[in-house]
C-alpha cells in the first residue's frame, strides 16, 4: 500500500495515499464530530486549509473531496463566524436597495479576488458579489448556484463579506420574484383545491389489487 505523510494540526501521520483528507483523519484515529456532514461534497461542513510542506501557497478545499498529498499540513475549519442577516422574505422586493440594507459591506469589496481563489467549488465569487452590488440578482443567483456554503471565501475576505449569505439572498429573491410564474403549476393547485381529482383518486384507491396491477403493467409511458 502506497502511503504519504501528512500533518494533522501539525502532527505527522502516515496514511494510505488514495484516501481523501476526511478519511485520512479517521484512518489516523480521529472520531469526527465537527467538520463532517454529508461526506460527498454537498454540505460544506468540511472546509479545510492546507499548505504543502516547502511551498508558500495556502490552499482551501473540502476535506471529503480532496485526496491527500505528501507533505500536506492540514487544519480543518469546522466553523467560521459568517454573518447571516435575518429578514422577512415576503416583505422584500428584488430591488438593489435590499442588498444595501442587508449586506452593505459588499460595497466595501476591494477587488482582491481572494474569495474566488479560495472557492472550493471553483465559482467566480467576486463576480457574483459584483452582480449583487448592481442589484442583478438573477445573475448573482446563477453564478453562485453551486455554492455549498463552506465559508472559505468568508475566511479570506479583507472586507468582511459573508459571500454565501449574499448568494443565498439573491437566489431566494430570484426564485420567488424574478423567475416567471409557472402557470401550469398554479392551475393544477387550483384544480386540486377545487376538488377536481377527489373522485378519481378515491376510485383508484378502491380498486382491487389485480385491477390496479393490470393498469400499472399496461400504462402508457410518455416518450
Amino acid at each position, binding site marked *: 500500500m502506497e502511503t504519504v505523510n501528512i500533518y494533522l494540526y501539525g502532527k505527522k501521520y502516515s496514511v494510505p495515499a488514495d484516501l481523501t483528507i476526511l478519511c485520512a483523519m479517521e484512518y489516523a484515529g480521529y472520531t469526527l464530530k465537527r467538520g463532517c456532514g454529508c461526506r460527498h461534497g454537498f454540505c460544506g461542513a468540511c472546509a479545510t486549509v492546507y499548505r504543502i510542506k516547502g511551498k508558500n501557497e495556502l490552499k482551501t478545499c473540502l476535506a471529503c473531496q480532496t*485526496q491527500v498529498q505528501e507533505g500536506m499540513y492540514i487544519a480543518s475549519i469546522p466553523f467560521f463566524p459568517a454573518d*447571516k442577516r435575518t429578514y422577512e422574505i415576503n416583505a422584500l422586493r428584488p430591488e438593489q436597495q435590499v442588498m444595501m440594507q442587508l449586506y452593505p459591506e459588499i460595497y466595501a469589496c476591494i477587488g482582491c479576488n481572494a474569495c474566488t481563489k479560495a472557492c472550493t467549488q471553483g465559482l467566480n465569487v467576486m463576480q457574483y458579489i459584483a452582480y449583487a452590488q448592481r442589484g442583478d440578482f438573477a445573475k448573482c443567483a446563477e453564478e453562485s*448556484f453551486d455554492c455549498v*456554503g463552506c465559508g472559505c471565501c468568508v475566511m479570506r475576505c479583507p472586507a468582511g463579506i459573508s459571500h454565501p449569505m449574499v448568494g443565498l439572498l439573491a437566489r431566494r429573491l430570484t426564485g420567488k420574484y424574478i423567475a416567471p410564474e409557472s402557470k401550469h403549476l398554479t392551475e393544477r393547485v387550483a384544480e386540486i383545491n377545487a376538488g377536481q381529482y377527489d373522485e378519481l383518486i378515491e376510485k383508484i384507491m378502491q380498486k382491487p389489487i389485480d385491477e390496479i*396491477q393490470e393498469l400499472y403493467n399496461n400504462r402508457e409511458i410518455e416518450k
Partner: protein
Amino acid sequence: MYTEQMNASVRKVEATRDARMGTEPERMSAEQKEQLLAAFHPDYREDAFDTIAIGPNKGQKVPKELGRLLHTNSRLLNEQIDLDRIDCDADVLIIGGGGAGASAAIQAHAAGAQVMMVTKLRIGDANTMMAEGGIQAADQPNDSPVQHYLDAFGGGHFAARPELLRRLVMEAPDAIRWLNDLGVMFDKDAQGNMVTTHGGGTSRKRMHACKDYSGAEIMRTLRDEVLNRGIPVIEFTSAVELLKDENGNAAGAVLLNMETDEYLVARAKTVILATGGAGRLHYQGFPTSNHYGATADGLVLGYRAGVPLLYQDTIQYHPTGVAFPSQIYGALVTEKVRSLGAMLVNCEGEAFMHPLETRDVAAAAIIRECSERGKGVDTPLGSGVWLDTPMIERIGGAGTIERRIPAMLRMYLNYGIDMRTTPILVYPTLHYQNGGLEIDAAGFTKSVGNLLAAGEVVGGIHGRNRLMGNSLLDIIVFGRGAGKAAAERAKEVTVGKLNLDHIHTYAEQLSEAGLAGDGLSPLLLPNYARKAR
C-alpha cells in the same frame, strides 16, 4: 485515471455508441422483474436478515445491522438523569434538522407554536442536502395526481398505504408551489414552464429539479427560513431517548450534547421525529450515499417507545453509486444522468437493460451483470458497469452536462475524469430506507400519543420501493403536515410528570429474550476511526 483494462473496455463502449444512439432497450415484463429481484436484489438474501425478538414487530424480518441496534439496550439504562430538572421547554420539539424537520418547524411556527429543533450535526447536514435528481409532482397538463399515484403504487410493489400515498400525490403540486414561494429556484424555461424529466418508473415527465443540487437548493432555503423566523436550533445535540408522561404520551426527549457528552432534558407538548435514514449502518457491507449521521436513531427511539415499524426489511440500493475512483466510492450518481439519456452498458459495450427501470430492478440487474454474467469491469474495490455519459452531450447538445448536472461533472473532474467525453463506472450503493415508523395520514405515529414522525424515518408512504423524486416530496408534504398537526395538538396538551419507564420495560423484554447484549443504542455516529473507509 482509468487502468489499461478499463480503457480497453471504454473503447468497446465507444464502438457501440453510434448504433445504440436513438434506440431504447426493451423494458422487462413483470415476471422477468420478479425473477431478477428474487435472484439478485440484496433484500432477498436470507442470511443478511434477522428476526425481531421483542416489541410490536416481533417475529418479523429486519436487516442484521438494524436488528442488532433494536436488540441492544438504551444508553440511558444505567445513567442517573434528573427528569425534574428541565433544561428546555417547547410546545413542539423537532428532532432532526433535515428537510422534514425544517418544513415541520416552519409550519409549526407559522401556526403559532413555540418550536425548538435539535439536530445531531448542523442544521442541513442531512440526506436532504445531498439529493441531486429532483422532486416529483403531477403539474404538467398531460399528467394528474392519479397517474402519479399509479406510478408510485406500482413502483412500490402495491404495498404503499393508500391513505398516505393519496396525501403525497394530492399535495405534491402545492408542495412545489410552497417551495417556489419560499424562493427555491426550480429549473424553468423562459415562459415559466417547469423543466421536467422522467425518473425510473415514472410514466410522465414530472421530475422537477434545481440542476443537480435539488436537495441543496431546497435545504438551504428551508434552513434560511427557519433562521429568519428565529426558531431555536440546537446543533450537535442528539436525541437519545424519548420521554413520556404518566399517560404514556410522548412528552419530550433526553438529549446528548455531542461535544461535551452532557445530557439535557427537553420537555414538549408534542414531538416530531425527523431523523432520516440508516445508510451509515452499511447493510451487507454496502457503501452508502448517505450523510454521516444516518444511523437509524429515530427507528430505535420510536420502536423502544412502542411505535411499530413497517417494511423495515426493504432497503433501497441505488443502482448507480460511484464504483471508481475509490475516493468517492459509494457516492451517488444521480438518476438524472439516465433521465438525460445515458445508458447502462457492460464491459463488452452492450446496453444490458432499459436505463429507466425502477431502482430495485436496475440495482439487481447491475449486480447480475457483475456476478453471474461476468460482464462487469474490475475496479480496486470490486466491480462496476459503465454509465455512458457522453451520450448526454450527443442527445442534448454540447454543454448539457455542465448545465444540468454540474455537481456530477465537478465530482469526477476532481479526479481527472471528464464524464462529457468518457463514460463512468457505477455499482449499487446503499441509499434509502423504504420502511420506518408507522404513521397515520395526519402524521401521528401509531400507538404513542403526541408523537409524530416525518421524512425518511417513516415507512409506508412508498411501499416496498421508492421512486426517485418521491422522497424529497414526502419530506415536504408530510413535514409540513406534521408541523401543523403538532402545533394544533400542542394547544390541547398539558404535560405531566416525565418518565423513562419504557426503556426499563424494554430492557426486561430483552433480557427475557436472552438478548441483553453489550453495546449501546442508538448508534449516533458510525465508527470509522482507524479504518481506511
